[in-house]
């Protein structure tokens, strides 16, 4: 049994402690918004927030995740209303969309840390792969959020 805190709720799952968090989320908890794409921490499609920091859930075991608060794409908002999601919608970012949960989560973590990131800081944080090539729109969406914050 592994005890986890996912999206502000305590849950117990019957998995071996070395099971990657990704597969606990997807197969045991049916939180399928977090995606499998490489399984080796390269692409970031499986990114979730652990204590607010972006982690690749395919490289994080259930045991490691036990002590921390985990937020998945499903826990970000109930209606795509998080400012980063709104900006992604307004910029019409996704194409196939498969990497976008991870992109959104990574962008959320970046903007939590740096309210107005430079292009270089965006490059360093946004290492997620998008095979469709939506990078310029992801960048615009991040800047849009930063700009929105500056005004308020």
């Amino acid at each position: 049994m592994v005890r986890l805190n996912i999206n502000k709720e305590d849950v117990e799952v019957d998995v071996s402690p070395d099971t990657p968090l990704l597969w606990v989320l997807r197969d045991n908890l049916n939180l399928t918004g977090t995606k499998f794409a490489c399984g080796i921490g390269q692409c970031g499609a499986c990114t979730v927030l652990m204590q607010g920091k972006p982690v690749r859930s395919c490289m994080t075991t259930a045991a490691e995740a036990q002590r921390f608060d985990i937020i998945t794409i499903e826990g970000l908002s109930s209606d795509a209303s998080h400012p980063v999601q709104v900006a992604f919608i307004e910029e019409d970012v996704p194409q196939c969309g498969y990497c976008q949960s991870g992109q959104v989560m990574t962008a959320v973590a970046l903007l939590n840390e740096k309210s107005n990131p430079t292009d270089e800081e965006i490059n360093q944080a946004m290492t997620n792969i998008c095979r469709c090539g939506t990078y310029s729109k992801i960048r615009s969406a991040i800047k849009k959020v930063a700009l929105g914050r500056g005004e308020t």
Partner: protein
Amino acid sequence: MDLTRRDFLKVSSTSAGGLAIAFTIPSLATVRPYKMASVTNSEISAWLVIEPDESVIIRVAQAEMGQGVMTSMPMLIAEELEADWRKVKVEYADVNRQVLLSGIYGRMQTRDSDAVQLSRETLQLVGAEARERLIKAAAETWTVDPEDCYADYGRIFRSGSSESLSFGEVAGLASQVSVANVKIKTPEAFNLLGLATPRLDVPAKVDGSAIYSMDVRLPDMLYAAVVHSPVLGGTVKSLRFNAIRHMPGVVKAVRMESAIGVVADTFWRAKSAADELPVFWNLGEQGKTFTDTIKRDFFEEFSGAGEVMLSKGKIGYLMDHAERTIESDYFVPYLAQVPMEPLNCTVHVQDSKVDVWVGHQDPEGIVDAVSRLTGKAPHDIYVHNCFLGGSFGRRSHMDFVIEATRIAMEVDRPVQMIWTREEELRSGAYRPMSAMRFKAGFDIDKQLIALSNHSVTHSIRYDQDKSFQGIDDSSVEGLRNHPYSLPAYEFTHTRKNTHLTSWWWRSGGHSINAFAMECFVDEMAGAAGVDPIAYRRQMLADKPEYLDVLDVLEQESGWGKRNLPRGTAMGMAIHKSYGTVCGQVAEVTVDNGEVTINRVTVAIDCGNLVNPMTAEEQVEGSVLFGLSAALYGKLTVENGRILEDNLDTYGILRMHETPEIDIHWALSGADKWGGLGEPATPVIAPAVCNALYKITGRRIRSLPITDYYLQVR
């Protein structure tokens, strides 16, 4: 599967409570089980439902893989319908209905960037016919002449009256009336077409609620991981299931000819057991091959004659008498498509029917394949297409669907089979390898007198049909129909297959042939001492569609007009594919062996645009797809095995390497509705390589670029 906006909202609102859905199998609202689409009062046609609440549900026959068909196809109907776009919802057309009603949706296969070309007129007529029926229904309600009524923004109006009826109010009657001689609009009358329109599938794709086939969850569902022969063509000699039988959750192992499926209660348990499963393989002679030996075999074909496909003039004589000749060999490796979502498919084989949940470009092909495998009638095969997490050609192959079905045939519950990225990259279906030899002869005035080309390419068709003879069109597309006016020429081709298997890859043979052709045309321009754009203009003098694109490209890129620092240069290329002419200028910098693409200027003519927003997205994405391949793309064979088996070794461009991309439409209008999902892909590699030549003095004739160490000359 149903993909209406209403369901998107339903999905996100059920996830409102965070983990509220986490401990139950999610409701089937997200993955609707098949039900025969009944002809209800509100169904105007097989394509279109207008609900009493004014929702306009438009059915899409093509697969949404990121290219935006779930927005562009409905726009074609909504334009003619005079619908209120905000009321439009979208769902996939029912494949089973297509089977039962023999092709009611036309071709459901998505390929060749031709969704708009193929369906435009049909969908416009669907919208126009529905509009006329709504008008007629309203006119009957008012007992007036339909000629005095018109539709606008989701309502029917009466000329000279303030009366109006909503679509929803007359939809029931409209489904029963008939109309004739329906006409579609001329482009000047378009309100919606040509307007940058946000994609309808975006909200569900930023909150995790969009359902890809890997997200399908069914009661009692099992998972399967697969181990393929490490060498393509290898077969299973034996396996020891007893070694994994005791592992948690393991249900069974399904032995296939060259793969084993391991079935368990979760995917991770299936994969963990598959990793431990002892399997012994017959690898055969193909287990002794290397990239270098395969490549050598391709180049050896140049000593043979090849099959002539284009010829004019006495090439041998002209080359012998040329003042100067240049000869160059080009080469491209096998490549993988690498859609973000690894290949997967969920199948439930039951006594009376088979359900298949998959993201696929060819749902009708699945009906055939699964029907043949299971012996069930085509109308008992229910294909539930999902969003495709990328495809780039890979999700038109049947291999993974067939494997999932074979596993499911051994299990009495639904099974979701997932290939890990490693299994996918080892599974074949690669963009073909090709080698090409060009030779050009010039006279004393540096005028081209003859060009010869011999291409040697792995044939996709031969992989599918070993009795295939002759030249595979897909191997020579863009080469056999090159646009250049040449005084004399000979183009020959040799088919060359290996133990690897090949398949479609975004822009197919164009990606191979445009690279070699456009690089060699640059070499010819250099030999003639003429600017590359000016040189192409000379050879394209009778092709206005290319000249117009070249004009825009030259002007917008600042070609020849900008002072670029040492180590930076521009290169260009132009190519037509899928009915669209695309020219690109790449501004490239080389610094300490590092290649940076600063900017790409694109000039492109697809004739007309349905949705400029998705159109730009496609062009930008196509450039980056081609750029990843140009810089990093290769599959290396060692002892018959593919070395690049995940994203740490198969390079894909990331954000920090992404150039600025300026897209300029050079639209020629008229009846031209060219494709946009692919035409920008083949052009970037030659544009970049031609820039690299200017910087380094070195011709890049073999991809990927990062195989070279480049220095500023």
